[in-house]
């Protein structure tokens, strides 16, 4: 028998055709600008061109008397905001556990209703809550009065001590639907046989949730948490809409997003500075990178995935 050499490879240009548009747009509009931003953080503007500046911008950001205060304050606020926002996960998972109960009536109605705020823009949510919490309008006080807690009312968004916490809760209110949906989908994909086996073994009710279902949906919960973490850096819109670019009152709600906006574009008396803006963005990038790495290497490894 004659052995023939490997034949000419089949034409595979279609692979390139399929991939090219996505790779090109993504690279040009996302990846290149991102690296350009990282690069600009190492330069400073002199006249109208960039001059190499090493890590001096970071020095200014961390230690400069005027600017570092703003940065550390925004970072602290961001961390605090993230902690509050994480509350959405236990709440959402709890709701999902209830919704995933077998034979629950009207489940679709609850799901639809609870997911509703997630669809609204920050502009609507922010202004809406601003009105509702406004001392000028009686909605919040009357509602609190209806449950006998009228004394608790205060202009939450106007006070330095409570403004950021309130924003955090507004964000939780808006986004609780996301963990709820994802956890719900994970819960109902647990095979019925496993739940039946648990029933037969006498693991029922709350114990069933904690012993059987929760361990099976850990991977989803891990994913939800990291999504919350990343999404947290998009909270600019909410702060900007309700409290303005300065994070009123008195910078108490200033977060990295608003700081980036002011630093980059300038605001009122402050002049815009693309290099310092890029420096803030780079810091945000590094923080996210650190968070994602922690997730990938520490958290995700410990979570076992199950194939059903």
């Amino acid at each position: 028998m004659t052995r023939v050499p490997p034949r000419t490879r089949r034409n595979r240009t279609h692979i390139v055709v399929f991939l090219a548009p996505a790779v090109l747009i993504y690279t040009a509009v996302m990846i290149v600008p991102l690296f350009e931003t990282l690069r600009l953080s190492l330069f400073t503007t002199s006249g109208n061109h960039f001059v190499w500046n090493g890590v001096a911008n970071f020095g200014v950001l961390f230690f400069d008397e005027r600017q570092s205060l703003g940065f550390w304050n925004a970072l602290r606020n961001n961390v605090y905001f993230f902690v509050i926002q994480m509350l959405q996960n236990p709440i959402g998972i709890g709701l999902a556990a209830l919704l995933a109960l077998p034979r629950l009536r009207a489940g679709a109605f609850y799901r639809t209703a609870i997911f509703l705020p997630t669809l609204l823009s920050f502009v609507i949510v922010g202004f809406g809550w601003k009105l509702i919490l406004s001392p000028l309008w009686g909605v919040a006080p009357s509602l609190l009065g209806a449950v006998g807690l009228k004394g608790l009312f205060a202009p939450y968004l106007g006070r330095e001590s409570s403004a950021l916490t309130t924003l955090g809760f507004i964000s939780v209110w808006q986004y609780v639907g996301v963990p709820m949906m994802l956890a719900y989908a994970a819960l109902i994909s647990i095979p019925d046989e496993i739940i039946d086996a648990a029933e037969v073994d006498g693991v029922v009710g709350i114990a069933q949730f904690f012993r059987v279902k929760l361990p099976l949906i850990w991977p989803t919960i891990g994913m939800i948490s990291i999504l919350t973490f990343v999404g947290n850096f998009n909270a600019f819109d909410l702060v900007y809409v309700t409290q303005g670019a300065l994070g009123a009152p008195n910078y108490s709600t200033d977060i990295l997003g608003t700081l980036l906006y002011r630093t980059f574009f300038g605001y009122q008396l402050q002049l815009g500075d693309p290099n310092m803006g890029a420096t803030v963005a780079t810091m945000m990038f590094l923080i996210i990178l650190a968070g994602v790495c922690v997730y990938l290497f520490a958290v995700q490894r410990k979570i076992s995935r199950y194939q059903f």
Partner: protein
Amino acid sequence: MLAAHAVLIAYTAVAVLPVLFIVMNSFKSRRAIFLAPLALPGPGSFDLVGYTTVLKTGAFGSYFANSLIVTLASLAGIIAFGSMAAFALAEYRFRLNTLTALYLMLGIMIPIRLGTVGILELMVAGHLVNTLVALILVYVASGLPVAVFVLTEFMRTISDDLKNAGRVDGLSEYEIYFWLVLPLVRPAIATVAVFTMIPIWNDLWFPLILAPGEATKTITLGAQQFIGQYVTDWNAVLAALSLGIFPVVGLYLIFSKNLIRGITSGAVK
């Protein structure tokens, strides 16, 4: 079961009532808004003055059109390019497959806003500032990673036999993608569409930075600025907010069944 319903009803109230208060009061006269904020609009309090103010003063029609164009065009780009890339990654074995997949999915973890400085530079260089094209490009780029990720997962589940049957029947690779695979991943596409549409429609950051001009303002930016100007006109503000709520809620109620099925479709077969 009763306790479960009690909790769910309570939380549903928390989720829906604030929205309801806004919409309800937008139909009331100024006096009624303050006098009895919790009352439904009635014969004595019904008033559309807020809506007339909004429609007279704001260029909401053009804002709305801008938002619609940007959202639909971005969505079309994301779905078309995302599904093509996902098909290539799910279907073919080639040397750079894993690497390309990782590269494209990197964007899930990194908010595109961090590249704003660079993006503005790029748009200035391309004379695209204050155009809708700038927004569309940015949204397509930022939506692609999730779309590629979700659609690749879905396309992997389509049986090889089916695609091979198509090849035996004489379909080209492009036809297999367009004609066999796309129809089968429709639920996934619907899910991706909804989930990428919401943040695009609602985005404030890029319209503010890339297209703040009057001619290219989106509804989200327009509403934000309108409300900022008219803070003291409660009727107008409430009406503007309600106008932002109606289309979203309307669409949602129409699609919610499919949406929820899409999200859970991996689960409930």
